[in-house]
């Protein structure tokens, strides 16, 4: 049997203040588009089982638009698959705080009233789903605080589907995926929550998110996105890449020491190279920028580049010394005492005063003043 494993679709994710023609947040639209692309890619391989390992939605309560669009897409997919098994294991993003509140994913559950045929949702507890020769043990995010006891079934292809980070889980000493994968006879352990595709063990893998939906998208910029196809007969799992609808570009940083505003503008312009019909999400890091050079920059240059991107972010890292070579007070990592020590080390003082004593006395006074302020 073939199992398509995908995860962390984060439907309903919004970012930046950009909207499309329909008035939707552009990133929300992008993320949904990528979701559709992934499903289309999966359908091409005609899997027996589709398995989603959590964070299907980005929010506990997605917008109506997201819900309707998702429902339609899933209905179309299941119609084409003739209600083949489609299993969704809830992640932390859609897990309600209290069990009595219900989970939005239940809306799609084909076993519960007007759901989508073939869709099975596991929101809480651990549940074993029988899909012919394959048995899938599902461990949703909300179960990770409890003692989990899942065992593979003899004579069946046992698959474990879970949502959670292995490193975090081991802190509770209750459930360690690494140990489970090493010591048991699971054919495949399908994992979600980690946004980067990662083969944890030979039989265990995070398939990663389908789009750039984490808080630090720049770290994922160069990482491929997609889904995993697992063949139970061969025991092999293969990552199938699907490009997100919108690229994230983390441009090579450059050093701006001694660069003027005009030179920086030139460097920015030359670095910002991508096809004209594409509007990616872009970050440009610049180190050791002189504040005057930053403020004197031709704004139109940045504006022109911004117009070509969905989001263009220049990460300015300023020089820590001023034009006189003096340390800039308040520069990153410098406390008020550091400022004083830097200042005291170069200030002219009468010859009768010992410089160390001068510096030390000032430091003590600053500490004492901090104490006085705290008391106030």
């Amino acid at each position, binding site marked *: 049997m073939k199992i398509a494993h995908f995860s962390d679709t984060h439907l309903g994710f919004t*970012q*930046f*203040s*950009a909207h499309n023609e329909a008035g939707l*947040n552009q990133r929300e639209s992008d993320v949904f588009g990528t979701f559709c692309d992934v499903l289309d890619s999966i359908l091409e391989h005609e899997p027996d089982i589709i398995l989603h390992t959590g964070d299907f939605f980005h*929010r*506990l*309560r997605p*917008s109506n638009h997201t819900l309707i669009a998702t429902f339609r897409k899933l209905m179309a997919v299941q119609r084409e698959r003739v209600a083949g098994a489609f299993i969704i294991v809830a992640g*932390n*993003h859609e897990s*309600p*705080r*209290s*069990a009595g*509140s*219900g989970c*939005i994913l*239940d809306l799609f559950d084909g076993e519960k009233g007007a759901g989508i045929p073939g869709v099975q949702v596991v929101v809480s507890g651990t549940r074993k789903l029988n899909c012919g020769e394959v048995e899938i043990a599902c461990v949703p995010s909300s179960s990770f605080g409890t003692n989990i006891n899942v065992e593979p079934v003899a004579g069946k292809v046992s698959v474990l589907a879970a949502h959670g980070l292995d490193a975090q889980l081991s802190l509770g*000493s209750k459930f360690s995926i690494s140990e489970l994968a090493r010591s048991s006879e699971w054919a495949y352990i399908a994992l979600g929550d980690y946004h980067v595709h990662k083969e944890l063990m030979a039989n265990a893998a995070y398939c990663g998110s389908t789009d750039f939906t984490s*808080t630090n998208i720049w770290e994922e910029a160069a990482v491929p996105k997609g889904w995993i196809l697992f063949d139970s007969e061969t025991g092999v799992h293969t990552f199938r890449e699907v490009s997100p609808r919108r690229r994230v570009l983390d441009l090579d940083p450059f050093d701006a020491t001694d660069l003027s505003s005009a030179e920086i503008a030139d460097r920015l312009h030359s670095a910002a190279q991508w096809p004209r019909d594409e509007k990616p999400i872009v970050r440009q890091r610049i180190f050791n920028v002189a*504040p005057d050079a930053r*403020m004197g920059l031709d*704004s*139109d240059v*940045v*504006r022109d*580049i*911004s117009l070509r991107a969905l*989001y*263009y*972010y*220049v990460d*300015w890292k*300023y020089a820590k010394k001023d034009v006189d070579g003096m340390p800039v*007070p*308040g*520069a*990153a*990592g*410098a406390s*008020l005492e550091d400022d*004083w020590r830097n*200042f*005291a080390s170069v*200030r002219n003082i*009468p010859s*009768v*005063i010992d410089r160390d*004593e*001068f510096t030390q*006395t*000032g430091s003590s*006074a*600053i500490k*004492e*003043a901090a104490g*006085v*302020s*705290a008391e106030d």
Partner: protein
Amino acid sequence: MFLRKIRLYNFRQFVDAEIDFTDGITAIVGPNGSGKTTVIEAISWALYGENRATKETIAHIWGDNKAEVSLEFSVGRREYRVERSLDSAKLWELAAEEDKLMSTGLTAVTSQCEILLNLTYDQFRSSFCAEQRQLEFLKFSSAEKKQDHVAKMLGFDNLRTAAKLEKDRATAALAEWKGMKNALGEPGPIREEFRRCVAEAKDAKLNLGRSRGLLKELTDEREKFTLRKDAADEALALIKRMAERRQIGADRKREMENETAQVAKHEKECAELKRLQPAAAEYSEKKPKVDEMQRAAEARTKAEWLLAQLKAKIEECEKKCAAMPTIDIDKLERTSIEMAKVLADAERLVEKEKQLWIESASNARTAVALAESKADQLNSELSRAREMERDGKCATCGQSLPPQRISLGAKLEKDLEKAGSEVSSAKKKLSALSSAPLPLSKASQAADEAKGASESADKNLRDGRVAHERRMEEMASLKNAQEQLADLEVELKRMPGFDRETVEKAKAELAALQEPWERSMRLAHAPEYLSAAKKRFDVARARFEEAKAEQGADEARVKKLGHTKETAQELIEAFERLQKEIRNAEINAASQTQIAAATIERMRVARDRIRSDRRSRAAAIELHGKYILHAEVAKGLTELRDRLNAQTIPRLQLAASDSLAQLTGGRYLGLKLNDRFEATIMDGNTQKKVISGGEEDMVHLALRLGLAQMIQDASGQPMSLLILDEAFGSLDTDRRDNLMERLDALSGIFRQIIVISHVETIKEAADQCVFLKYDPLARCTVVEDPPCLAAIPS
């Protein structure tokens, strides 16, 4: 910093609540007073133990006063948990194997958190937490106030305090230096005093040597004199003791003579005792026999007297019994019962007759009342009929009466007359029943007679019983006396007979022997007394001999010492004179020692004054140096503050520009601030004033983020957490929507954003939403899921 989880136990509105934090935007939504801001306060309280409220108001009002907050957070790759209650705190570093306790105690944990975050409480609040009024700090009236506010947020304000502290120290040092300088006089007089003290010390030392020499001479002489003086002391003591011993010898001699007289007396008594012993033995033998004879005689005499008494009593009882008649009690009882029956029958008859009389009287009264009622009714009808008939109408139907009709009034008059006679008849009957009827009187009389007869029969029965009991008692007494008489006669026969003359003779013989017997009894212990007196005499004689010997030994020793009382006393007096001289010499030597010590002390004081003077002069120089140092540091701190203040606007401009560019996705590259902190936006290369409310909010947010960036830069930590507390509070709908759009942009800057708002629409922009609701039944705030989710059946 990244927040993971917080648990509030008995903290303000919360009894026991737990909130998990994730990446992205977490909205904490709830109505006013539901405890949204309390969550943020709990975070800062857990970390720093600081709070806007007092210790008393932290604990939940209905709880058990054990407020506790547990906060899990991470800094870099390390994870921590801080647990703080009102009186204890612990900080743990979380690890896969076992959590490690980093510090314990309220102050220690606060210090450790400051080190971990590299932020003080104020800096934490200023950098991570942005309240609405902080977003609008640019609305302060003057540039100075804005500058001060920014300086305070960035911590520069501490430089002003530090400079003031240093200035105060410089002023204090200067004043002290001046005072010290004035207090220090010329060194000349102090040195002169020291020289004078040295000369005096030399003289004192010389005098001390002399007095000590004299004391030594006298002491040596006393040593030589001591043996002679001891002999004189001994002789004088022996002479005194000899007089005492003479007195003792005389006393002991008197004791010996007394004991000699006692021995003679007891020897005489022993001889008399020996002489009396035969007579006493005879008396002892006869005395029991005579006593026995005496007791037998007395018993017989008593029995004979008792016999005579009993005989007299029997005779008297027999007479009394003969005089008492025999009574038939059964007959008397039967008579009494019969009379009682007759009385009961008579009383029943009386009761029956009385009941009949009462019933007849009651019937008669009823008949009178009925007759009178009927007469009254007829009388009333007659009056009405007469009135109608006077008008020629029928009294019954009101129709006109035909003349031939018999008048109703006339008929009623006849009826009334008949009713009157009925009333009279009934009253007569009632009157006849006013006194008791004849049968009742007769029955009452018969009952009275039966009662008299019954009472008489009862009395006869009672009297008969009393007389019968008396006769029975008397007969029992007679029988008893007869039995006693028989017993006594038998006993008298058993008693031995006796001769009164023999008894009297034996008693006379015994009386003659009584006196010698009594004397021998008194002298019975005379031999023991004699033996004791002889022993005491021997002791007294030995003591007398001993005193005599001791006296002789003392006389011999005095003779050997060769002293008389006079020569010994003379020698002792001479020795005491020498002692007196030595004491005087000692006092003199001590006095000289004191004088020398005082002189040396004065010399030491003078020398210390010289040294102190030198030290004071050195201290004054040091104090002056201190004044220069503190004054210079104060100046330096002020200069640094001015320098930092001068850089504040450019730096804030830079940081806010970066934030603005991020917030607008490069739509605006930056902003510029003038000296009054008034911002203009750089739209392309054109500077434009902030006009719209949306732009104003955006600029404020950018400035606030810029400030947070500056504070966190100083702490060396990346911007990761932002807490917006009611930042949307009073904004109108458009501006709120505008700011909410910016949240999406903020989520690209901060890993974690916590938005606190009572505006529920904020949940649309949040990745996670925590609803707080005050439960009036539980009297605490509870954490809930979004209401729309709670409505979906599971």
